[in-house]
């Protein structure tokens, strides 16, 4: 074809395209003027143009990248990584490609599997976690765990993990190939449980248990791969909440994901129990419990979180009888092949699964973690009982009660320990960030990060070497911390700066556990060290002071806390020229202290300043902002401004739920505080369910004796007194007082408060004699621990006066009710509920004392608006 022809064709083609299709034949007749070959050529091109559609419209870049990528994987063969030489690729998974390798030094020929982690997963925080946890993982030594041998970073920066090379096939394929009977499958499954339990005892959660991760060797031994790797990779990086959220979900095998995993909530050992349950379901039935393919992400979450899986026995029955519309015409074949692979007839398999095995499987897959088996061992034991014909724990009807009881006794052990591990790391990050804020140069921030890594490594090492096995199953978190605290002193003697940070972390963890004395000791040591290192004009010193003051405040020792906070605030105001978040933290504590001292206006002012600082630098949806809102609301509520208080509390609750989800300690606090606003407006009925929800949540998260649980009990008790439900109030107040001298310090404000509640309840139920004793004790505590003129003293005096009035000891009652009223009026104003009540007590006194003139005078004050 010559250029002229081609040009002519193109000219007609382009013009033709511009013309409406119905007029094209006429146009072509004219344009080609009898040249049939030309016309055919143009026509066929125009037809092709119509048909081509999306042809070539999507650039081939994606394919090109796949090709380049595949080529790079092939090119790894023969490469040397550390002491290993790669032999060939053996697979690709979500985390990275796996290669068979052997030691390159030829000293002894050991084959290993090397996993090269996908570069995008290998950000800085992953490398840091990897560094920390490598040793813990390498220490996992169990016949059913493929051991992590080594790890590092290649010359071009790709992190890698070296594991035992397991020659085997996935467990489900193995079971079917060997046509293992149900009993044999259960025995094999129990070995996996023992591996998982062993790892849990070593504070390692697998997080990615699935059939593809369990290989069975030719000797029939099951080996669990990739222990702890998932957590290493998918743990949230708190600096990038947007990128981190859902990252785990995206990479996780959804078929095995528990409700808490798909909801991005806290993952515990119970999540592994769930995944083991899914595995058992598959080994028994040949199927996954849910059909998640082709579902949207929203549907997947809904199905996993809400739908009950079908009983294994019903599933195999349905497959056999072809009753399910979900499955195609091959259903009979499928049902038959499933039972054949288990050496059963279809009906026999159904009978084998019905009852115990249905119950055991579904129990392990319960939606709420607390409703599952507590440990992998318990799961395994139940299977053993089934195999031996003994009654099993899991039974649909009786299960709830017995199991809950068991969990109540044993839950603290392993699961709590792993939670604490996460808390510790969180604590370090926070501490570091606070310090980082105070310093402007980026270099310093980097040094901080390196320091944090060292501290992390240290604390992690502590936790792993505490060795739960040596003390039996119920090693407590406190024991782990004690050990860590002891070793900081000896092993970090030469690195005082790091020791101080570690002590800070340990101290704050003690504080969060409510162990005040231990917390104080650790934080004190940290402060002393920092003073020696930095002198007084240093943000870290101020932060240490603030931490220590927090412990004193929590113990009710305001006199010790106040000077520390004043100093910390002054230092930070001078040294923190950044976003002033450190200043906001101290303001928060200071405001709380002023509030406890009864100086409400100053407290309000400080909280408002703190709220402004936090909003300006953190935005609106941040836990710290919620905290400020919440604390400010408490102050406003106490001042009597309930409407404003409720508004801020609701705002705080919304932020907290958005940031943390429904099951978080702060949700409980917000609920409880909102409840107290309602109480103030006498909406007791509305408040009670909020307290109950908050109490349940806190008990679940913190155990029964935690001071935060006590606070709710206490507030709830107060509400019941107000409501006039004295029996309930008495019960609740006694629960609080039972902790006195145990988890609750002897002279804690809550002790005085509970004595008051108890006294009022007894008064209410006509027992003023005993009430008097309790009220006097309360008053004595208040007078001892609070400044003269504090409204809480006044209030207690007023109540005691009421009690004496009831017993007609009017002379004794008179000064108490009068003094109480005048102090309350001075502190809280005329309009305050407590002031009002104390005025009523005066009227009551004079009424019963038969002094109508005085009664009338005070009654007149009562009716004033």
């Amino acid at each position, binding site marked *: 074809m010559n250029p002229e022809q081609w040009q002519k064709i193109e000219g007609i083609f382009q013009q033709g395209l511009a013309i409406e299709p119905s007029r094209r034949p006429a146009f072509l007749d004219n344009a080609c003027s009898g040249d049939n070959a030309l016309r055919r050529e143009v026509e066929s091109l125009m037809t092709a143009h119509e048909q081509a559609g999306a042809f070539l419209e999507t650039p081939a870049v994606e394919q*090109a990248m796949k090709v380049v990528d595949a080529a790079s994987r092939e090119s790894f063969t023969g490469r040397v990584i550390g002491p290993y030489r790669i032999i060939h690729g053996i*697979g690709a998974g979500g985390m*990275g490609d796996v290669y068979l390798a052997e030691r390159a030094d030829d000293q002894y020929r050991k084959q290993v599997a090397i996993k090269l982690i996908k570069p995008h997963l290998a950000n800085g925080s992953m490398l840091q976690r990897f560094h920390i946890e490598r040793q813990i993982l390498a220490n996992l030594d169990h016949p059913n765990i493929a051991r992590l041998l080594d790890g590092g970073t290649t010359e071009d920066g790709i992190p890698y993990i070296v594991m035992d090379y397991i020659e085997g096939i996935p467990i489900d394929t193995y079971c079917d190939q060997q046509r293992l009977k149900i009993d044999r499958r259960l025995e094999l499954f129990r070995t996996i449980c023992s591996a998982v339990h062993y790892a849990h005892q070593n504070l390692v959660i697998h997080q990615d248990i699935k059939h593809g991760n369990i290989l069975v060797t030719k000797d029939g031994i099951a080996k669990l791969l990739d222990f702890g790797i998932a957590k290493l990779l998918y743990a949230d990086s708190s600096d990038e909440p947007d990128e981190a959220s859902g990252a785990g979900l995206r990479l996780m095998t959804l078929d095995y994901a528990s409700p808490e995993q798909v909801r991005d909530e806290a993952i515990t050992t119970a999540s592994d129990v769930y995944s083991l349950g899914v595995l058992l379901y598959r080994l028994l039935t040949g199927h996954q419990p849910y059909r998640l393919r082709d579902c949207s992400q929203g549907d997947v979450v809904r199905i996993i979180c809400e739908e009950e899986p079908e009983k294994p026995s019903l599933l195999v029955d349905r497959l056999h009888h072809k009753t399910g519309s979900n499955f195609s015409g091959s259903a009979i074949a499928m049902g038959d092949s499933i039972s054949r692979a288990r050496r059963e007839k279809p009906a026999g398999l159904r009978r084998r699964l019905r009852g115990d095995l249905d119950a055991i499987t579904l129990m392990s897959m319960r939606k709420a973690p607390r409703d599952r088996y507590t440990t992998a061992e318990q799961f395994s034991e139940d299977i053993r009982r089934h195999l031996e014909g003994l009654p099993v724990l899991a039974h649909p009807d009786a299960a709830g009660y017995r199991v809950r009881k068991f969990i109540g006794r044993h839950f603290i052990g392993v699961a709590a320990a792993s939670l604490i591990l996460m808390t510790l790391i969180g604590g370090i990050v926070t501490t570091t960030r606070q310090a980082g804020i105070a310093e402007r140069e980026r270099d310093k921030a980097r040094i901080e990060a390196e320091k944090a890594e060292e501290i992390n490594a240290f604390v992690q090492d502590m936790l792993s070497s505490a060795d739960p096995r040596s003390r039996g199953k119920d090693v407590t978190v406190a024991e782990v911390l004690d050990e860590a605290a002891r070793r900081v002193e000896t092993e970090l003697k030469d690195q005082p700066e790091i020791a101080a940070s570690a002590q800070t972390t340990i101290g704050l963890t003690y504080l969060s556990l409510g162990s005040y004395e231990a917390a104080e000791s650790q934080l004190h040591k940290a402060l002393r060290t920092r003073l020696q290192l930095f002198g007084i004009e240093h943000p870290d010193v101020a932060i240490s002071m603030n931490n220590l003051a927090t412990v004193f405040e929590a113990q009710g020792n305001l006199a010790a806390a106040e000077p520390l906070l004043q100093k910390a605030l002054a230092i930070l105001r001078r040294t923190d020229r950044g976003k002033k978040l450190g200043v906001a933290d101290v303001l928060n504590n200071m405001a709380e202290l002023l509030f406890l001292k009864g100086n409400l206006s100053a407290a309000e002012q400080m909280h408002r300043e703190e709220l402004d600082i936090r909003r300006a630098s953190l935005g609106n949806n941040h836990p710290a902002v919620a905290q400020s809102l919440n604390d400010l609301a408490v102050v406003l509520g106490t001042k009597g401004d309930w409407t404003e208080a409720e508004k801020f509390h609701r705002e705080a609750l919304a932020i907290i739920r958005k940031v943390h989800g429904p099951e978080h300690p702060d949700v409980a606090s917000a609920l409880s505080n909102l409840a107290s606003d309602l109480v103030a407006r006498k909406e007791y009925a509305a408040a009670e369910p909020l307290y109950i929800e908050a109490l349940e949540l806190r008990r679940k998260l913190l155990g029964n004796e935690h001071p935060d649980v006590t606070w709710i009990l206490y507030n709830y008790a107060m509400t019941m007194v107000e409501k006039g439900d004295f029996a309930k109030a008495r019960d609740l107040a006694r629960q609080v007082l039972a902790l006195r001298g145990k988890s609750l310090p002897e002279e804690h404000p809550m002790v005085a408060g509970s004595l008051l509640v108890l006294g009022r309840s007894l008064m209410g139920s006509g027992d003023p004699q005993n009430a008097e004793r309790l009220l006097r004790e309360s008053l004595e505590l208040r007078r001892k621990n609070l400044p003269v003129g504090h409204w809480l003293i006044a209030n207690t005096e007023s109540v005691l006066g009421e009690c004496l009035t009831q017993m007609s000891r009017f002379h004794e009652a008179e000064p108490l009710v009068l003094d109480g009223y005048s102090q309350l009026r001075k502190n809280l104003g005329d309009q305050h509920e407590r002031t009002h009540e104390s005025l009523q007590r005066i009227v009551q006194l004079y009424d019963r004392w038969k002094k109508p003139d005085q009664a009338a005078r005070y009654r007149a004050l009562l009716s004033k608006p």
Partner: protein
Amino acid sequence: MISSSEPPNQEVTKALLDWSQGDKDALARLMPLIYDELHRLASRYMRRENPGHTLQATALINEAYIRLVDQTRVRWQNRAHFLAIAAQTMRRILIDHARSHQYAKRGSGASKISLDEAPALSAQQASDLVELNEALTRLAAIDPRKSRVVELRFFGGLTTEEAAEVLQTSPATVLRDWSMAKAWLYREMSRSNEP
């Protein structure tokens, strides 16, 4: 990400300058350098494992350019040269791979830890690419500019505007070339697929 702070590659910058000044050998030096860069980008993009995310071709090549070329030393036309070479490189990568894997059987019987590995190209994709490449070579003999438009847009992922920049013509011309080339190639490939 792991290595985002390296300085632009002076070697690439120089080769690009040489090539734009008429040194034909510079192209031979450039392609492997660009290939290496695509390599790096590829492993990053491919391992994202985010099925909902389609690869932004333009972004990819532009990223390579920014990373490889010292912006202070090249005139704006050099960017066009670079885009052209990158597109050519991508074409070569794909076609080489498609040719070598077109009839090759998949790997030996090494035991797999995980079974979700898939070949980079399906057999159909590979043979389509080889065929397209041949048709494109025939088109180049008739109308070189149209052939390059396809190379730039399909293999290089360039936008109409970028292709116009490379070819020193108007976007409207690129669009006209594209519709004609697409129709011609489609017809060629349908013909050869007929029994």
